[in-house]
C-alpha cells in the first residue's frame, strides 16, 4: 500500500475559514451590536483552533506510524543486504563443496604447515577461493601463492572477528587481479583467499605450485607445475594418507617384509 499524503483528509487551509469581516451595508451594521460581532469572531476562532489542534494530533499520529513502518522496512532491507544473509545464500549454493572441504579439514591426516591445501572454483569462472594452512599466531594475512601483491586495505567484518585484508596484483594496473584474505571463521588454522580475475602473466615463482604432488620414494612433498582442473579434495586426501603411511615405520617395515617375502617366494619358484 502506497502512502499518499495528498489523500489525507486534513485540511490545512484554515485561513479561508477564518472569520472574515463582513463588508456589510450600513443597515445590517446597525442591526448587530459591535460586542456581539466580537463574540462571534472569538467563538469562530476558538472553533478553528480546536479543529487545527485536532488535525495536529492526527498528523503526529500518522507520522509516527509511517516512521515506524519506514524503519521496520529499512531494517528488513539492511538484513537482506547484510554479509550474513549473502553468506547464507552462498552457503546454500556451495553447500556440498563446503561439506567436502570440512571433511577434509577435520581429517587427522594432513600437512602440518603445507603451502596450499586446495583450490575451489566458485560459480563464476573468474572468482576462486583457496584455503591456506597457517599458524594461529601469524596475523600477517600473507599467503604464498606464487604472485606478488600490494595490500590496499583492511577491514573488520561483522561475520568474522579476524580482519580481512585486500590486495591487488603487483602488476596492477596491467593485471587487474584482486584478492581478499581472511582467517577462516570456522577453522582459525586456515586463511581463506578469494581471488577475482585471472593473471595475465606468469607468477613470480612459476615452479611453486598451488597443488602438491607426493614423492613416495623420498616421502616428502615437492612443488610441481600446477595443472588445471587437477586434484579434487579426495585426491589430495588420498595423497596425504599415502604420505602419512610412508612416514609410519611400522607400515614401512610391513611393506618391506611383504616385498622381501615376495622375492623369496619368487626365488624358490
Amino acid at each position, binding site marked *: 500500500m*502506497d502512502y499518499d*499524503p495528498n489523500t*489525507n483528509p*486534513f485540511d490545512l487551509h484554515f485561513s479561508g475559514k477564518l472569520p472574515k469581516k463582513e463588508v456589510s451595508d450600513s443597515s445590517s451594521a446597525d442591526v448587530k451590536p459591535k460586542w456581539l460581532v466580537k463574540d462571534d469572531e*472569538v467563538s469562530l476562532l476558538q472553533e478553528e483552533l480546536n479543529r487545527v489542534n485536532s488535525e*495536529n494530533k492526527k498528523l503526529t499520529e500518522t*507520522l509516527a506510524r509511517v*516512521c515506524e513502518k*519506514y524503519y521496520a*522496512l529499512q531494517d528488513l532491507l539492511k538484513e537482506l543486504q547484510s554479509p550474513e544473509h549473502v553468506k547464507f545464500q552462498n552457503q546454500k549454493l556451495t553447500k556440498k563443496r563446503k561439506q567436502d572441504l570440512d571433511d577434509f579439514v577435520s581429517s587427522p591426516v594432513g600437512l602440518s604447515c603445507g603451502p596450499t591445501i586446495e583450490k575451489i572454483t566458485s560459480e563464476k569462472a573468474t572468482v576462486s577461493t583457496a584455503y591456506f594452512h597457517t599458524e594461529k599466531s601469524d596475523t600477517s594475512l600473507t599467503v604464498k601463492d606464487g604472485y606478488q601483491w600490494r595490500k590496499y586495505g583492511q577491514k573488520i567484518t561483522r561475520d568474522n572477528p579476524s580482519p580481512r585484508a585486500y590486495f591487488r596484483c603487483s602488476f596492477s594496473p596491467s593485471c587487474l587481479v584482486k584478492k581478499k584474505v581472511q582467517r577462516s571463521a570456522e577453522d582459525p588454522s586456515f586463511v581463506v583467499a578469494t581471488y577475482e580475475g585471472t593473471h595475465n602473466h606468469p607468477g613470480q615463482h612459476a615452479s611453486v605450485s598451488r597443488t602438491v604432488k607426493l614423492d613416495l620414494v623420498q616421502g616428502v612433498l615437492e612443488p610441481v607445475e600446477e595443472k588445471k582442473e587437477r586434484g579434487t579434495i579426495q585426491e589430495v586426501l588420498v595423497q596425504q594418507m599415502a604420505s602419512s603411511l610412508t612416514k609410519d615405520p611400522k607400515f614401512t617395515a610391513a611393506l618391506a617384509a611383504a616385498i622381501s617375502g615376495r622375492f623369496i617366494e619368487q626365488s624358490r619358484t
Partner: protein
Amino acid sequence: PPTSALVEELNRVSAENKKLSEMLTLMCDNYNVLRKQLV
C-alpha cells in the same frame, strides 16, 4: 481570551501542522522508495 491571542495561537498551531504535513510527505516518499527497492 482576547482575539489577538487566539489568532496568534492559531498561527502557531497551523505552522506546526504545515511542518508535520511536510515531514509526512517526506516520510511517505522515503517509504515508497524503500518499498520499491524491496519489490
